Protein backbone atom coordinates (compact mmCIF):
# COMPACT_ATOMS: atom_id res chain seq x y z
CA UNK A 1 0.00 0.00 0.00
CA UNK A 2 1.31 3.40 -0.96
CA UNK A 3 0.34 6.02 1.60
CA UNK A 4 0.61 9.78 1.34
CA UNK A 5 0.27 11.82 4.54
CA UNK A 6 -0.38 15.55 4.15
CA UNK A 7 1.49 17.58 6.75
CA UNK A 8 0.65 21.15 7.69
CA UNK A 9 3.25 23.30 9.42
CA UNK A 10 1.30 25.20 12.09
CA UNK A 11 1.98 27.34 15.17
CA UNK A 12 2.15 25.38 18.41
CA UNK A 13 -1.29 25.41 20.00
CA UNK A 14 -0.05 27.44 22.96
CA UNK A 15 1.35 30.21 20.73
CA UNK A 16 0.30 33.81 21.25
CA UNK A 17 -1.41 35.01 18.08
CA UNK A 18 -0.24 38.40 16.80
CA UNK A 19 -0.38 40.12 13.45
CA UNK A 20 2.06 42.35 11.59
CA UNK A 21 2.12 44.71 8.59
CA UNK A 22 -1.08 46.50 9.52
CA UNK A 23 -2.79 43.29 10.59
CA UNK A 24 -2.40 41.72 7.16
CA UNK A 25 0.16 39.04 8.06
CA UNK A 26 0.49 36.48 10.84
CA UNK A 27 3.44 37.50 13.02
CA UNK A 28 5.73 34.47 13.24
CA UNK A 29 8.15 36.17 15.65
CA UNK A 30 8.87 33.87 18.57
CA UNK A 31 6.35 31.29 17.35
CA UNK A 32 7.26 27.61 17.55
CA UNK A 33 5.94 25.61 14.59
CA UNK A 34 4.86 21.98 14.82
CA UNK A 35 3.20 19.23 12.81
CA UNK A 36 -0.52 20.02 12.68
CA UNK A 37 -2.02 17.93 15.55
CA UNK A 38 -4.73 16.43 13.30
CA UNK A 39 -2.04 15.38 10.78
CA UNK A 40 0.01 13.86 13.59
CA UNK A 41 -2.77 11.36 14.33
CA UNK A 42 -2.80 10.44 10.63
CA UNK A 43 1.00 10.10 10.47
CA UNK A 44 1.01 7.73 13.45
CA UNK A 45 -1.72 5.61 11.85
CA UNK A 46 0.35 5.48 8.64
CA UNK A 47 3.31 4.21 10.69
CA UNK A 48 1.07 1.49 12.09
CA UNK A 49 0.09 0.38 8.56
CA UNK A 50 3.76 0.42 7.55
CA UNK A 51 4.84 -1.73 10.48
CA UNK A 52 1.88 -4.14 10.72
CA UNK A 53 0.65 -4.49 7.13
CA UNK A 54 3.50 -3.27 4.98
CA UNK A 55 3.22 0.14 3.38
CA UNK A 56 5.41 2.93 2.10
CA UNK A 57 4.77 6.31 3.66
CA UNK A 58 5.45 9.58 1.85
CA UNK A 59 4.73 12.91 3.50
CA UNK A 60 3.91 16.08 1.62
CA UNK A 61 3.65 19.74 2.47
CA UNK A 62 2.75 22.72 0.33
CA UNK A 63 4.92 25.53 1.63
CA UNK A 64 8.19 27.41 1.71
CA UNK A 65 11.61 26.19 2.91
CA UNK A 66 10.71 27.18 6.48
CA UNK A 67 8.47 24.09 6.72
CA UNK A 68 11.40 21.67 6.24
CA UNK A 69 12.19 21.23 9.98
CA UNK A 70 8.58 20.08 10.43
CA UNK A 71 8.98 17.62 7.55
CA UNK A 72 12.26 16.34 9.04
CA UNK A 73 10.42 15.73 12.30
CA UNK A 74 7.80 13.69 10.44
CA UNK A 75 10.62 11.76 8.75
CA UNK A 76 12.17 11.16 12.19
CA UNK A 77 8.85 9.69 13.32
CA UNK A 78 9.26 7.13 10.52
CA UNK A 79 7.99 8.36 7.16
CA UNK A 80 10.12 7.08 4.28
CA UNK A 81 10.44 10.21 2.19
CA UNK A 82 9.14 13.74 1.92
CA UNK A 83 7.91 16.06 -0.79
CA UNK A 84 7.70 19.82 -0.43
CA UNK A 85 5.73 21.71 -3.05
CA UNK A 86 7.61 24.97 -3.23
CA UNK A 87 4.97 27.68 -2.95
CA UNK A 88 3.45 29.69 -0.11
CA UNK A 89 -0.25 29.01 -0.54
CA UNK A 90 -2.91 31.51 0.45
CA UNK A 91 -5.95 29.25 0.68
CA UNK A 92 -7.12 25.68 0.98
CA UNK A 93 -8.27 25.40 -2.63
CA UNK A 94 -4.76 26.24 -3.82
CA UNK A 95 -3.27 23.67 -1.41
CA UNK A 96 -5.76 21.02 -2.57
CA UNK A 97 -4.97 21.62 -6.26
CA UNK A 98 -1.21 21.38 -5.61
CA UNK A 99 -1.71 18.21 -3.57
CA UNK A 100 -3.94 16.75 -6.30
CA UNK A 101 -1.05 17.10 -8.76
CA UNK A 102 1.22 15.19 -6.34
CA UNK A 103 -1.40 12.48 -5.77
CA UNK A 104 -2.00 12.02 -9.51
CA UNK A 105 1.70 11.65 -10.24
CA UNK A 106 2.39 9.23 -7.38
CA UNK A 107 -0.18 6.42 -7.73
CA UNK A 108 -1.06 6.53 -4.03
CA UNK A 109 -3.67 4.18 -2.58
CA UNK A 110 -4.45 6.00 0.64
CA UNK A 111 -4.14 9.71 1.41
CA UNK A 112 -4.34 10.69 5.07
CA UNK A 113 -4.80 14.32 6.04
CA UNK A 114 -5.97 15.97 9.23
CA UNK A 115 -9.58 17.11 8.88
CA UNK A 116 -8.38 20.68 9.45
CA UNK A 117 -5.24 22.64 10.20
CA UNK A 118 -4.90 24.22 13.63
CA UNK A 119 -4.13 27.66 12.14
CA UNK A 120 -6.71 28.52 9.48
CA UNK A 121 -9.21 25.79 10.46
CA UNK A 122 -10.79 25.77 7.00
CA UNK A 123 -11.67 22.04 6.86
CA UNK A 124 -11.53 22.21 3.08
CA UNK A 125 -8.38 20.45 1.88
CA UNK A 126 -9.23 16.72 2.28
CA UNK A 127 -12.64 17.05 0.62
CA UNK A 128 -11.34 19.21 -2.20
CA UNK A 129 -8.39 16.88 -2.76
CA UNK A 130 -10.64 13.81 -2.91
CA UNK A 131 -13.00 15.49 -5.36
CA UNK A 132 -10.19 16.76 -7.58
CA UNK A 133 -8.59 13.30 -7.75
CA UNK A 134 -11.90 11.37 -7.83
CA UNK A 135 -10.76 9.32 -4.82
CA UNK A 136 -13.33 8.11 -2.31
CA UNK A 137 -13.55 10.39 0.70
CA UNK A 138 -14.42 10.02 4.36
CA UNK A 139 -14.20 12.99 6.69
CA UNK A 140 -14.03 13.18 10.48
CA UNK A 141 -12.43 9.73 10.57
CA UNK A 142 -11.96 8.21 14.06
CA UNK A 143 -10.93 4.70 13.04
CA UNK A 144 -9.67 2.95 9.90
CA UNK A 145 -8.90 -0.65 8.94
CA UNK A 146 -7.63 -1.72 5.51
CA UNK A 147 -7.92 -5.27 4.15
CA UNK A 148 -6.56 -5.49 0.62
CA UNK A 149 -8.46 -2.77 -1.18
CA UNK A 150 -11.46 -2.93 1.19
CA UNK A 151 -11.60 -0.28 3.88
CA UNK A 152 -13.75 0.03 6.99
CA UNK A 153 -13.88 3.48 8.55
CA UNK A 154 -15.59 4.97 11.58
CA UNK A 155 -16.48 8.62 11.41
CA UNK A 156 -17.86 10.91 14.05
CA UNK A 157 -21.42 12.14 13.58
CA UNK A 158 -23.49 14.42 15.79
CA UNK A 159 -24.16 12.37 18.91
CA UNK A 160 -22.43 9.18 17.82
CA UNK A 161 -20.46 7.24 15.25
CA UNK A 162 -21.05 5.81 11.81
CA UNK A 163 -19.29 2.81 10.32
CA UNK A 164 -18.69 3.02 6.58
CA UNK A 165 -17.23 0.68 4.02
CA UNK A 166 -15.40 1.72 0.88
CA UNK A 167 -12.46 0.91 -1.36
CA UNK A 168 -9.06 2.29 -2.11
CA UNK A 169 -8.05 4.74 -3.44
CA UNK A 170 -9.31 6.84 -0.56
CA UNK A 171 -8.75 10.22 1.06
CA UNK A 172 -9.30 10.43 4.81
CA UNK A 173 -9.90 13.59 6.83
CA UNK A 174 -8.63 12.35 10.18
CA UNK A 175 -8.82 13.44 13.78
CA UNK A 176 -8.17 12.11 17.27
CA UNK A 177 -9.36 8.52 17.31
CA UNK A 178 -7.54 7.52 14.10
CA UNK A 179 -5.04 6.79 16.86
CA UNK A 180 -5.24 7.80 20.49
CA UNK A 181 -3.17 10.68 21.78
CA UNK A 182 -1.20 8.36 24.08
CA UNK A 183 -0.07 6.40 21.00
CA UNK A 184 1.39 9.41 19.15
CA UNK A 185 5.04 8.87 18.21
CA UNK A 186 7.85 11.06 19.48
CA UNK A 187 11.02 11.04 17.38
CA UNK A 188 13.90 9.20 19.07
CA UNK A 189 17.59 9.92 18.54
CA UNK A 190 17.98 7.12 15.99
CA UNK A 191 14.97 8.41 14.06
CA UNK A 192 16.36 11.95 14.08
CA UNK A 193 19.74 10.74 12.78
CA UNK A 194 18.11 8.63 10.06
CA UNK A 195 15.78 11.46 9.06
CA UNK A 196 18.77 13.57 8.02
CA UNK A 197 19.58 11.06 5.28
CA UNK A 198 16.03 10.46 4.07
CA UNK A 199 15.05 12.05 0.75
CA UNK A 200 13.25 15.39 0.91
CA UNK A 201 12.28 16.27 -2.62
CA UNK A 202 11.43 19.86 -3.48
CA UNK A 203 9.14 20.16 -6.47
CA UNK A 204 7.85 23.25 -8.18
CA UNK A 205 4.19 24.12 -7.90
CA UNK A 206 1.84 23.52 -10.81
CA UNK A 207 0.71 27.10 -10.41
CA UNK A 208 -2.72 26.56 -8.91
CA UNK A 209 -4.49 29.78 -8.06
CA UNK A 210 -6.14 30.59 -4.77
CA UNK A 211 -9.83 31.46 -4.78
CA UNK A 212 -9.79 33.45 -1.56
CA UNK A 213 -7.42 35.94 0.02
CA UNK A 214 -7.18 37.24 3.55
CA UNK A 215 -7.52 41.00 3.49
CA UNK A 216 -6.87 41.55 7.20
CA UNK A 217 -6.87 39.88 10.59
CA UNK A 218 -8.55 41.01 13.78
CA UNK A 219 -7.77 39.98 17.31
CA UNK A 220 -10.75 39.37 19.54
CA UNK A 221 -11.77 42.29 21.72
CA UNK A 222 -10.29 41.99 25.21
CA UNK A 223 -12.64 40.30 27.60
CA UNK A 224 -13.88 42.00 30.73
CA UNK A 225 -12.94 40.63 34.14
CA UNK A 226 -14.82 37.63 35.47
CA UNK A 227 -17.71 38.44 37.84
CA UNK A 228 -17.17 36.34 40.92
CA UNK A 229 -20.15 35.08 42.87
CA UNK A 230 -19.94 33.81 46.43
CA UNK A 231 -20.16 30.02 46.67
CA UNK A 232 -22.95 30.38 49.22
CA UNK A 233 -24.99 32.58 46.92
CA UNK A 234 -25.85 30.56 43.81
CA UNK A 235 -29.13 32.50 43.58
CA UNK A 236 -27.06 35.46 42.43
CA UNK A 237 -25.48 33.36 39.66
CA UNK A 238 -28.92 32.25 38.47
CA UNK A 239 -30.12 35.84 38.55
CA UNK A 240 -27.09 37.03 36.52
CA UNK A 241 -27.54 34.27 33.94
CA UNK A 242 -31.26 35.06 33.66
CA UNK A 243 -31.37 38.86 33.86
CA UNK A 244 -27.94 40.02 32.70
CA UNK A 245 -26.64 37.38 30.28
CA UNK A 246 -30.17 36.22 29.31
CA UNK A 247 -29.03 32.66 28.63
CA UNK A 248 -31.40 30.74 30.94
Amino acid at each position, binding site marked *: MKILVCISHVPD*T*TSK*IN*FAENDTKFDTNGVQFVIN*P*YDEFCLTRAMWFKEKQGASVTIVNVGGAETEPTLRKALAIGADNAIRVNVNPTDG*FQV*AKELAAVVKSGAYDLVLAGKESA*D*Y*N*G*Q*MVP*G*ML*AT*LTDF*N*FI*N*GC*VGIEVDGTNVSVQR*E*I*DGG*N*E*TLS*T*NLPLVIGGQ*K*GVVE*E*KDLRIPNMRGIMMARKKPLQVIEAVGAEA*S*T*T*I*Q*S*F*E*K*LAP*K*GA*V*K*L*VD*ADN*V*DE*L*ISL*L*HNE*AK*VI
Partner: protein
Amino acid sequence: MSVLVFAESSEGKFKKTALEVVSYGKKVAEQLGTNVVALTINASDSSELYTYGAEKVVSVTNDALNTFNAKQYAAVVTEVAKAQNATVVVVDSSIDGLYIAPIVAVNLEAGCVSNVVAAPSNTNPFTVKRKTFSNKALSNTVISTDHKVIGLAKNSFGIHENVVAGTTETFEATIVASKVKSEKVERVTGKVTIADADIVVSGGRGLKGPENWGMIEELASILGAATACSKPVSDLGWRPHSEHVGQTGKPVAANLYIAIGISGAIQHLAGINASKVKVVINTDPEAPFFKAADYGIVGDAFEVVPKLIEKLKAFKAS
Protein backbone atom coordinates in the same frame (compact mmCIF):
# COMPACT_ATOMS: atom_id res chain seq x y z
CA MET B 1 -28.90 34.86 -9.82
CA SER B 2 -29.92 33.62 -6.37
CA VAL B 3 -28.55 32.60 -2.98
CA LEU B 4 -29.01 28.91 -2.17
CA VAL B 5 -29.04 27.70 1.42
CA PHE B 6 -29.01 24.05 2.41
CA ALA B 7 -31.47 23.70 5.29
CA GLU B 8 -30.36 20.57 7.16
CA SER B 9 -33.00 18.40 8.72
CA SER B 10 -32.97 15.33 10.89
CA GLU B 11 -35.84 12.82 10.77
CA GLY B 12 -37.84 15.32 8.72
CA LYS B 13 -37.43 18.21 11.18
CA PHE B 14 -35.23 21.24 10.62
CA LYS B 15 -32.23 21.75 12.84
CA LYS B 16 -31.99 25.10 14.58
CA THR B 17 -28.95 25.85 12.43
CA ALA B 18 -31.15 25.44 9.34
CA LEU B 19 -33.22 28.42 10.46
CA GLU B 20 -30.00 30.34 11.04
CA VAL B 21 -28.62 29.63 7.55
CA VAL B 22 -31.95 30.66 6.00
CA SER B 23 -31.86 33.92 8.04
CA TYR B 24 -28.29 34.47 6.87
CA GLY B 25 -29.09 33.60 3.25
CA LYS B 26 -31.95 36.10 3.27
CA LYS B 27 -29.57 38.83 4.44
CA VAL B 28 -26.99 37.98 1.75
CA ALA B 29 -29.73 37.89 -0.89
CA GLU B 30 -30.90 41.36 0.18
CA GLN B 31 -27.34 42.64 -0.08
CA LEU B 32 -27.03 41.19 -3.59
CA GLY B 33 -30.51 42.34 -4.63
CA THR B 34 -31.72 38.82 -5.28
CA ASN B 35 -33.78 35.97 -3.77
CA VAL B 36 -32.94 33.25 -1.30
CA VAL B 37 -33.77 29.66 -2.21
CA ALA B 38 -33.70 26.98 0.48
CA LEU B 39 -32.93 23.37 -0.40
CA THR B 40 -34.44 20.67 1.78
CA ILE B 41 -33.72 16.96 1.57
CA ASN B 42 -36.39 14.57 2.86
CA ALA B 43 -37.98 17.21 5.11
CA SER B 44 -41.70 16.68 5.63
CA ASP B 45 -42.94 20.28 5.71
CA SER B 46 -40.87 23.16 4.42
CA SER B 47 -43.28 26.00 5.16
CA GLU B 48 -41.46 26.87 8.43
CA LEU B 49 -38.64 28.25 6.28
CA TYR B 50 -40.93 31.00 4.87
CA THR B 51 -40.92 32.52 8.37
CA TYR B 52 -37.19 33.18 8.07
CA GLY B 53 -37.25 34.63 4.58
CA ALA B 54 -37.08 31.72 2.13
CA GLU B 55 -39.06 32.96 -0.88
CA LYS B 56 -38.63 29.65 -2.59
CA VAL B 57 -38.05 26.17 -1.17
CA VAL B 58 -36.73 23.43 -3.40
CA SER B 59 -37.78 20.13 -1.86
CA VAL B 60 -35.92 16.95 -2.76
CA THR B 61 -37.43 13.69 -1.55
CA ASN B 62 -35.70 10.43 -2.30
CA ASP B 63 -35.26 7.25 -0.25
CA ALA B 64 -31.69 6.97 -1.54
CA LEU B 65 -30.94 10.09 0.55
CA ASN B 66 -32.35 8.73 3.83
CA THR B 67 -28.82 8.16 5.08
CA PHE B 68 -26.35 11.01 4.70
CA ASN B 69 -23.79 10.35 1.98
CA ALA B 70 -21.45 13.27 1.37
CA LYS B 71 -20.87 12.72 -2.35
CA GLN B 72 -24.57 12.23 -3.07
CA TYR B 73 -25.71 15.15 -0.92
CA ALA B 74 -23.02 17.42 -2.41
CA ALA B 75 -24.16 16.39 -5.92
CA VAL B 76 -27.75 17.33 -5.06
CA VAL B 77 -26.67 20.72 -3.66
CA THR B 78 -24.57 21.30 -6.79
CA GLU B 79 -27.37 20.30 -9.17
CA VAL B 80 -29.90 22.55 -7.41
CA ALA B 81 -27.38 25.43 -7.25
CA LYS B 82 -26.94 25.18 -11.03
CA ALA B 83 -30.69 24.84 -11.67
CA GLN B 84 -31.42 27.91 -9.50
CA ASN B 85 -28.51 29.89 -10.97
CA ALA B 86 -27.16 30.36 -7.45
CA THR B 87 -23.90 32.23 -7.15
CA VAL B 88 -23.70 31.90 -3.36
CA VAL B 89 -24.29 28.61 -1.54
CA VAL B 90 -24.62 28.64 2.25
CA VAL B 91 -24.32 25.57 4.50
CA ASP B 92 -23.94 25.42 8.25
CA SER B 93 -20.64 24.50 9.87
CA SER B 94 -22.00 21.20 11.22
CA ILE B 95 -20.12 17.92 10.76
CA ASP B 96 -22.18 17.16 7.64
CA GLY B 97 -22.16 20.78 6.41
CA LEU B 98 -18.38 20.92 6.46
CA TYR B 99 -18.21 17.44 4.90
CA ILE B 100 -20.09 18.55 1.76
CA ALA B 101 -18.87 22.18 1.47
CA PRO B 102 -15.47 21.42 -0.14
CA ILE B 103 -17.05 18.91 -2.56
CA VAL B 104 -19.66 21.46 -3.64
CA ALA B 105 -16.90 24.07 -3.95
CA VAL B 106 -14.89 21.90 -6.35
CA ASN B 107 -18.05 20.98 -8.28
CA LEU B 108 -18.88 24.69 -8.75
CA GLU B 109 -15.23 25.87 -8.96
CA ALA B 110 -16.14 28.10 -6.05
CA GLY B 111 -14.05 29.74 -3.38
CA CYS B 112 -15.07 28.30 -0.05
CA VAL B 113 -14.91 29.88 3.39
CA SER B 114 -16.02 28.11 6.58
CA ASN B 115 -16.71 29.30 10.14
CA VAL B 116 -18.14 32.57 8.85
CA VAL B 117 -19.53 34.74 11.66
CA ALA B 118 -21.22 37.70 9.95
CA ALA B 119 -23.01 38.87 6.83
CA PRO B 120 -20.62 40.06 4.10
CA SER B 121 -19.06 43.41 4.97
CA ASN B 122 -18.87 44.07 1.24
CA THR B 123 -20.32 42.24 -1.76
CA ASN B 124 -17.85 43.64 -4.30
CA PRO B 125 -15.29 42.31 -3.58
CA PHE B 126 -17.25 39.68 -1.66
CA THR B 127 -15.77 39.89 1.83
CA VAL B 128 -16.71 37.78 4.85
CA LYS B 129 -15.42 37.58 8.40
CA ARG B 130 -14.46 34.14 9.69
CA LYS B 131 -12.98 32.61 12.82
CA THR B 132 -9.38 31.53 12.56
CA PHE B 133 -6.43 30.37 14.70
CA SER B 134 -8.71 28.11 16.74
CA ASN B 135 -11.11 30.96 17.54
CA LYS B 136 -8.30 33.18 18.81
CA ALA B 137 -8.68 35.64 15.92
CA LEU B 138 -10.86 36.63 12.98
CA SER B 139 -9.95 37.13 9.35
CA ASN B 140 -11.63 39.28 6.72
CA THR B 141 -11.54 37.06 3.66
CA VAL B 142 -12.27 37.99 0.05
CA ILE B 143 -13.78 35.32 -2.19
CA SER B 144 -12.71 36.11 -5.73
CA THR B 145 -14.49 33.40 -7.73
CA ASP B 146 -17.86 33.82 -9.48
CA HIS B 147 -19.39 31.16 -7.26
CA LYS B 148 -19.00 31.21 -3.49
CA VAL B 149 -19.57 28.57 -0.82
CA ILE B 150 -20.00 29.75 2.76
CA GLY B 151 -20.03 27.64 5.91
CA LEU B 152 -21.84 29.66 8.57
CA ALA B 153 -20.61 29.23 12.15
CA LYS B 154 -23.30 28.15 14.59
CA ASN B 155 -24.87 30.84 16.79
CA SER B 156 -22.97 33.57 14.98
CA PHE B 157 -25.65 35.32 12.91
CA GLY B 158 -28.71 34.33 14.91
CA ILE B 159 -32.22 33.43 13.86
CA HIS B 160 -34.22 36.33 12.46
CA GLU B 161 -37.89 36.18 11.56
CA ASN B 162 -38.63 37.66 8.17
CA VAL B 163 -42.00 36.33 7.08
CA VAL B 164 -42.49 35.99 3.33
CA ALA B 165 -45.14 34.32 1.19
CA GLY B 166 -42.94 31.50 0.02
CA THR B 167 -43.56 28.70 -2.41
CA THR B 168 -42.26 25.15 -2.44
CA GLU B 169 -41.41 23.22 -5.56
CA THR B 170 -40.31 19.62 -5.77
CA PHE B 171 -37.14 18.69 -7.59
CA GLU B 172 -36.13 15.31 -8.98
CA ALA B 173 -32.47 15.14 -8.13
CA THR B 174 -30.00 12.89 -9.89
CA ILE B 175 -28.55 10.40 -7.43
CA VAL B 176 -24.86 9.89 -8.22
CA ALA B 177 -23.07 6.65 -7.51
CA SER B 178 -20.95 6.54 -4.37
CA LYS B 179 -18.50 3.85 -3.36
CA VAL B 180 -18.77 4.92 0.27
CA LYS B 181 -21.53 2.91 1.97
CA SER B 182 -22.96 3.42 5.43
CA GLU B 183 -22.93 0.13 7.32
CA LYS B 184 -24.03 1.15 10.80
CA VAL B 185 -25.08 4.29 12.65
CA GLU B 186 -24.72 4.36 16.44
CA ARG B 187 -26.26 7.43 17.97
CA VAL B 188 -27.00 8.19 21.59
CA THR B 189 -30.71 8.86 21.49
CA GLY B 190 -32.68 10.97 23.91
CA LYS B 191 -29.67 13.09 24.82
CA VAL B 192 -28.91 16.62 23.69
CA THR B 193 -25.77 16.53 21.54
CA ILE B 194 -22.96 19.05 21.93
CA ALA B 195 -23.46 20.19 18.33
CA ASP B 196 -27.14 21.01 18.83
CA ALA B 197 -27.01 22.29 22.41
CA ASP B 198 -27.51 25.90 23.40
CA ILE B 199 -26.17 25.08 26.85
CA VAL B 200 -23.28 22.73 27.63
CA VAL B 201 -22.37 21.52 31.12
CA SER B 202 -18.81 20.24 31.22
CA GLY B 203 -16.84 18.45 33.90
CA GLY B 204 -13.11 18.11 34.51
CA ARG B 205 -10.70 16.18 36.66
CA GLY B 206 -11.88 18.18 39.66
CA LEU B 207 -14.85 15.81 39.80
CA LYS B 208 -12.45 13.10 40.95
CA GLY B 209 -14.08 10.13 39.20
CA PRO B 210 -16.77 8.93 36.76
CA GLU B 211 -19.03 7.96 39.65
CA ASN B 212 -19.54 11.66 40.37
CA TRP B 213 -20.99 12.51 36.96
CA GLY B 214 -24.56 12.08 38.18
CA MET B 215 -24.71 15.68 39.33
CA ILE B 216 -23.32 16.93 35.99
CA GLU B 217 -26.02 14.97 34.18
CA GLU B 218 -28.71 16.21 36.55
CA LEU B 219 -27.63 19.82 36.11
CA ALA B 220 -27.59 19.33 32.31
CA SER B 221 -31.01 17.74 32.39
CA ILE B 222 -32.55 20.68 34.28
CA LEU B 223 -31.03 23.14 31.78
CA GLY B 224 -31.80 21.03 28.68
CA ALA B 225 -28.05 21.00 28.14
CA ALA B 226 -25.53 18.60 26.64
CA THR B 227 -22.79 17.11 28.82
CA ALA B 228 -19.13 17.46 27.95
CA CYS B 229 -15.73 16.95 29.52
CA SER B 230 -12.10 18.05 29.43
CA LYS B 231 -9.37 16.09 27.67
CA PRO B 232 -7.86 14.42 30.79
CA VAL B 233 -11.31 13.10 31.67
CA SER B 234 -11.76 11.44 28.27
CA ASP B 235 -8.14 10.20 28.32
CA LEU B 236 -8.81 8.56 31.70
CA GLY B 237 -11.86 6.88 30.21
CA TRP B 238 -14.27 8.49 32.68
CA ARG B 239 -16.34 9.84 29.79
CA PRO B 240 -16.53 8.95 26.05
CA HIS B 241 -14.29 10.74 23.55
CA SER B 242 -17.39 12.16 21.89
CA GLU B 243 -17.73 14.47 24.92
CA HIS B 244 -14.14 15.72 24.82
CA VAL B 245 -14.13 19.45 24.21
CA GLY B 246 -10.99 21.30 23.13
CA GLN B 247 -8.43 21.88 20.42
CA THR B 248 -8.43 18.28 19.19
CA GLY B 249 -11.85 17.44 20.57
CA LYS B 250 -15.22 18.95 19.82
CA PRO B 251 -15.65 22.69 19.40
CA VAL B 252 -18.47 24.28 21.39
CA ALA B 253 -20.30 27.39 20.22
CA ALA B 254 -23.05 27.37 22.83
CA ASN B 255 -24.91 30.30 24.34
CA LEU B 256 -23.85 29.11 27.80
CA TYR B 257 -20.87 26.91 28.72
CA ILE B 258 -20.59 25.82 32.34
CA ALA B 259 -17.17 24.40 33.27
CA ILE B 260 -17.01 22.50 36.53
CA GLY B 261 -13.67 21.38 37.95
CA ILE B 262 -11.83 22.34 34.74
CA SER B 263 -8.70 24.45 35.16
CA GLY B 264 -8.81 25.81 31.60
CA ALA B 265 -5.73 24.67 29.67
CA ILE B 266 -5.19 26.73 26.53
CA GLN B 267 -6.21 23.78 24.33
CA HIS B 268 -9.51 23.49 26.20
CA LEU B 269 -10.18 27.22 25.93
CA ALA B 270 -9.52 27.06 22.17
CA GLY B 271 -12.43 24.65 21.91
CA ILE B 272 -14.91 26.74 23.85
CA ASN B 273 -14.12 30.38 23.23
CA ALA B 274 -16.74 30.62 20.49
CA SER B 275 -19.31 30.17 23.27
CA LYS B 276 -21.09 33.34 24.30
CA VAL B 277 -21.27 33.13 28.10
CA LYS B 278 -18.85 31.05 30.15
CA VAL B 279 -19.28 30.09 33.79
CA VAL B 280 -16.53 28.42 35.79
CA ILE B 281 -16.79 26.62 39.12
CA ASN B 282 -13.40 25.67 40.52
CA THR B 283 -11.68 25.42 43.90
CA ASP B 284 -8.50 27.07 42.62
CA PRO B 285 -8.88 30.86 42.30
CA GLU B 286 -5.71 30.88 40.17
CA ALA B 287 -7.18 28.49 37.56
CA PRO B 288 -6.67 30.03 34.08
CA PHE B 289 -10.35 29.50 33.31
CA PHE B 290 -11.26 32.43 35.57
CA LYS B 291 -9.50 34.76 33.09
CA ALA B 292 -11.62 33.43 30.22
CA ALA B 293 -14.94 33.20 32.06
CA ASP B 294 -17.75 35.74 32.39
CA TYR B 295 -18.99 34.44 35.74
CA GLY B 296 -17.19 32.37 38.31
CA ILE B 297 -17.56 30.70 41.65
CA VAL B 298 -14.48 29.80 43.65
CA GLY B 299 -15.71 26.75 45.45
CA ASP B 300 -15.91 23.00 45.75
CA ALA B 301 -18.02 21.45 42.98
CA PHE B 302 -19.38 18.89 45.45
CA GLU B 303 -20.89 21.69 47.51
CA VAL B 304 -21.75 24.24 44.81
CA VAL B 305 -23.33 22.00 42.16
CA PRO B 306 -25.96 20.34 44.41
CA LYS B 307 -26.98 23.81 45.62
CA LEU B 308 -27.14 25.03 42.03
CA ILE B 309 -29.30 22.03 41.06
CA GLU B 310 -31.69 22.70 43.93
CA LYS B 311 -31.98 26.44 43.19
CA LEU B 312 -32.34 25.91 39.43
CA LYS B 313 -35.15 23.42 39.99
CA ALA B 314 -36.97 26.08 42.02
CA PHE B 315 -36.18 28.73 39.38
CA LYS B 316 -37.50 26.55 36.54
CA ALA B 317 -40.63 25.72 38.54
CA SER B 318 -41.40 29.36 39.30
